[in-house]
């Protein structure tokens, strides 16, 4: 039985939208930009306006069969083609196939003097020509505002710009217009007055030498939308907005269980293991067996013929596989069958968002049913900023919306109790298992207990975790 989560169950009303195909942007806009209307994208220099605009056209042409006209008031077509190569966008090919046209309106061509009444019909004629030539359904104007610095900010020009946007609307194209961020207004020349349907604001700031890009939907007439500032990245595959949340997706809550890979631990969790699609945390000090429990979970996924993606942040893939072999867990076997991908990474704190994005791209590519992050603590120590937690909430949301079970380990500092120190993430997890060491005589014994497990009658007992070359097992503690 699947139960729909009421929090996210409200459907968006039916204003028609044009999917951008840009990762994350369609989610926060509830499906894309307003179709056959104009959207303003504004921001300071280098904020990513042009990349976002071009990607909107490229994906429109590639994924939605909507040819696009890019009207550039700044960059020359050849430099646009060259600049977008690194993103994997072959603009030349799209241009040859008549699915993309770049039209350069060179405002710097000759000195311009304004004397008396004029219209922008010259521009309209060029737009019309371009739209007709490829049957464009999407149009980008980047950055048309420059025209003010050439012709002067006159009533005449403003009236003509208003006319141009009416004209675009009559042409029934979905337009994206970029604007330079102004000091007091959203754009330098108040472009937002003409484009009131949808306004996106991009921001690029450097805090503590860390580059951060943010995207915010300032307004979206006739549509609910995400209100936050969303991390936004310009990466190898273009733009990604990092909510990747469940705003659009109706979370399904599953009653299905997945084995922990340790029979006795399944027993402690009401006999059946974790809920599928939930988040599991295993915390404990160094050497308590966190990675082993993670590996048991990964191996159990393989045994069910399910794919697991294991992010190892402290050990190399080979080292992890060797260590687990000594516990009778053959990770190589599942790796060879393509059911287990061990991804060793070292989190460099500078590129935290990039890192998270890389993980999400891999998750998207491999479509695993289980994901392990071992340990997550490396990320959390990267900053106590609330945004780190917010990012993990988004990752968890993202995985939940895809019914992917997330298993994370967390290292507890030396003197802390394993169930008191994970306040950073413990509220986000559904099942929390703590590991501890107890000295009995001359022996250190591993203890395991379930701190919490939402939605099930779990055991309250503390057991001993026994590791041998036959695998992992639990035993009742000796009195």
């Amino acid at each position, binding site marked *: 039985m699947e139960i729909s989560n009421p929090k996210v169950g409200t459907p968006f009303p039916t204003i028609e939208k044009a999917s951008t195909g840009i990762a994350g942007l369609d989610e926060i806009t509830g499906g894309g930009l307003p179709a056959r209307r104009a959207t303003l994208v504004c921001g300071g220099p280098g904020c990513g306006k042009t990349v976002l605009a071009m990607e909107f056209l490229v994906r429109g042409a590639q994924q939605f069969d909507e040819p696009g006209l890019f009207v550039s008031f700044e960059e020359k077509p050849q430099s646009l083609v060259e600049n977008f190569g690194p993103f994997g966008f072959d603009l030349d090919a799209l241009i040859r196939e008549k699915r993309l046209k770049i039209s350069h309106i060179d405002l710097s061509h000759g000195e*311009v*003097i*304004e*004397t008396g009444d004029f219209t922008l019909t010259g*521009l309209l*004629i060029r737009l019309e020509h371009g739209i007709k030539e490829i049957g464009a359904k999407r149009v980008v104007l980047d950055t048309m505002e420059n025209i003010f610095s050439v012709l002067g900010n006159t009533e005449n020009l403003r009236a003509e710009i208003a006319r141009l946007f009416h004209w675009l609307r009559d042409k029934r194209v979905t337009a994206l217009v970029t604007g330079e961020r102004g000091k007091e207004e959203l754009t330098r020349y108040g472009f937002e007055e003409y484009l009131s349907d949808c306004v996106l604001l991009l921001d690029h700031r450097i805090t503590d030498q860390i580059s951060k890009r943010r995207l915010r939907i300032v307004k979206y007439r006739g549509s609910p939308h995400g209100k936050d500032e969303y991390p936004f990245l310009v990466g190898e595959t273009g733009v990604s907005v990092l909510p990747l949340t469940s705003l659009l997706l109706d979370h399904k809550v599953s009653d299905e269980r997945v084995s922990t890979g340790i029979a006795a631990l399944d027993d402690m969790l009401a006999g059946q293991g974790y809920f599928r699609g939930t988040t599991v945390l295993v915390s404990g000090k160094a050497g308590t067996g966190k990675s082993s429990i993670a590996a048991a979970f990964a191996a159990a996924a393989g045994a069910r013929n399910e794919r697991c993606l294991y992010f190892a942040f402290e050990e190399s893939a080979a080292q992890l596989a060797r260590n687990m072999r000594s516990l009778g867990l053959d990770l190589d076997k599942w790796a060879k069958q393509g059911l287990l991908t061990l991804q060793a990474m070292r989190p460099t704190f500078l590129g935290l968002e990039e890192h998270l994005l890389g993980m999400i791209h891999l998750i998207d590519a491999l479509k695993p049913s289980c994901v392990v992050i071992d340990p997550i603590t490396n990320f959390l120590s990267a900053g106590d900023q609330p945004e780190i937690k917010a990012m993990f909430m988004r990752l968890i949301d993202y995985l939940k919306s895809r019914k992917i079970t997330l298993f994370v380990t967390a290292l507890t500092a030396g003197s802390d109790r394993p169930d008191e120190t994970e306040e950073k993430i413990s509220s986000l997890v559904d099942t929390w298992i703590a590991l501890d060491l107890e000295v009995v005589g001359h022996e250190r014994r591993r203890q395991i207990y379930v701190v919490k497990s939402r939605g099930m009658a779990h055991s309250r007992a503390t057991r001993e975790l026994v590791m041998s070359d036959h695998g992992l097992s639990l035993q009742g503690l000796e009195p």
Partner: protein
Amino acid sequence: MIAEQPDHKWILRLYVAGLTPTAERALANIKTICTQHLEGQYALQVIDLLESPALAELDQIFAVPTLVRQLPSPLRKIVGDLSDIPKVMAGLDIKTGPQ
């Protein structure tokens, strides 16, 4: 519409989009200036973008009317109905000698 004269010092193009009242005003204004100050040394071509839209790209035209001064160089564009005659003259860099 070309005034046939050899060895033009002045080559001008007036871009319009249909013969609107603004376009006609611009044409009358530039003709007046040419006949008064550039007689015998200019060529004036009128290009209607409604008839030849592709030509808009040639001189990077976005507003109409636009008068392009091709020669003498450097290239200059004068946008509008050219009603401010002194400003047009200054823009074209026409020296007003003694009449």
